[in-house]
């Protein structure tokens, strides 16, 4: 059997969703981009931790990224949300700027350097939020046309009724935006959460085909979900290594 250290991920050029970014058009990357999507409290970060440890144990360099973590605007978004009533398009563009900053300064360089990038959410959550808030679907898809297609995208699909209990276990309260409270869905926050998460879930199912999202049954235990994810990732890497 060949030693793992002698096997490398093959190099290729990036593939964009839309118009892409001109100066990255011919960039070649060695790494792989794996995305885990899913609502708050769906267990994303736990899974990412577990997968990261395992991949690192296998000798891969791993970079974790997520939303609202850019040098440029992450603090700005939090401040702006606190201090101002932001319009929906404004907030959507703000998030896009935050994503673009991390995309160009973290994700792409890491992929060039041969890292496996594990992204805690990607453009899909941002698109789903926009669509539910009444922004044009086509507009949102175009907006993120500069993003590259990940190698794998998993969606942790958790029933809203199960999810709500996980949120209470984690935080003991429901987050304003994650409950869609800005949408005026219901005066009852619990009900608002369920309606909102159902909408998000529907939007993800609608995106499934277009973006090749792989739904993962997230109603199961942490270890069950993890072995499911890990198996799929191992299979993928097996093929990508040569």
């Amino acid at each position, binding site marked *: 059997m060949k030693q793992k250290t002698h096997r490398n991920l093959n190099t290729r050029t990036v593939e964009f969703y839309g118009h892409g970014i001109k100066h990255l058009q011919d960039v070649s990357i060695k790494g792989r981009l794996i995305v885990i999507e899913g609502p708050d409290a769906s267990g994303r970060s736990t899974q990412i931790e577990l997968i990261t440890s395992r991949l690192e144990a296998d000798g891969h360099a791993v970079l974790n990224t997520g939303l609202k973590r850019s040098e440029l605007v992450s603090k700005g978004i939090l401040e702006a949300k606190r201090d101002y009533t932001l319009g929906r*398009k404004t907030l959507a563009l703000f998030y896009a700027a935050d994503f673009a900053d991390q995309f160009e300064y973290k994700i792409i360089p890491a992929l060039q350097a041969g890292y496996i990038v594990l992204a805690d959410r990607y453009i899909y959550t941002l698109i789903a939020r926009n669509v539910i808030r009444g922004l044009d679907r086509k507009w949102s898809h175009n907006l993120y046309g*500069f993003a590259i297609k990940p190698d794998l995208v998993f969606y942790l699909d958790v029933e809203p009724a199960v999810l709500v209990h996980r949120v209470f276990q984690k935080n003991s309260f429901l987050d304003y935006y994650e409950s869609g409270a800005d949408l005026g869905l219901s005066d009852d926050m619990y009900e608002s959460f369920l309606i909102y998460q159902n909408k998000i879930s529907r939007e993800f199912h609608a995106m499934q085909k277009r973006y090749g999202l792989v739904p993962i049954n997230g109603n199961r235990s942490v270890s069950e979900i993890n072995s499911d994810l890990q198996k799929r990732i191992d299979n993928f890497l097996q093929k990508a290594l040569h």
Partner: protein
Amino acid sequence: MKTSGKLIVVEGIDGSGKSTQIHLLEKWLAYKGINVFKSEWNSSEMVKEITSKGKKKGLLTPTTFSLLHATDFADRYERNIFPLLRAGYFVLADRYVYTAFARDVVRGCNDEWVKKVYDFAIRPDLILYFKVPVDIAVDRILVGRPNLKYYEAGMDLSLSNDPYESYRIFQGRIIEQYDSMTETEGFTVIDGTSNIEDQQKIVRKRIMPLLPNNISGKTRTKRRGNETKNSQKS
């Protein structure tokens, strides 16, 4: 959605004199008792703070530069421009989406992408483009040897190591973009090298047909309307 207000836009490179003209226009409209509101490019307080941080650090890529300006525009659009138009105001925009189209494309963004990002913006009733040869505009700006900022000078494009030279090339490229849009976007071109007073006369003539009848005066509106048509033919 229908708006009862009017949107008037001025465009042109730095030093084209457009801000002077929009200022005079604003005063004139206010003097006539019209509800008028002026909105300047890149002026949202909320976005400004964040953009300037990134600008200082030289961190912006063409994409983030474009998106932050779009955020600024969206904030002003959602909170001021659009609601004011709905309420019947004359909204004067010192730069509008065309500035983004020109600058972002020069910086290397895909032009279709940029246009779609801004496609929520309502079409103006009038777009006044103050056209000035690059050397005249640049000399107007550079006469005091100002400290050109990194992005203002287009230094991120690696056109030249000299900020002044870079600025000149950058402005020249923006003019090319404006010129390419003139017909498709329906710019009304105004010669920015002529006297301030003469330019303002032309600006006001163009605005007349947009004024409510009771303010412009019915007979005058008719005459002015004909004049405008004639001048377009010649």
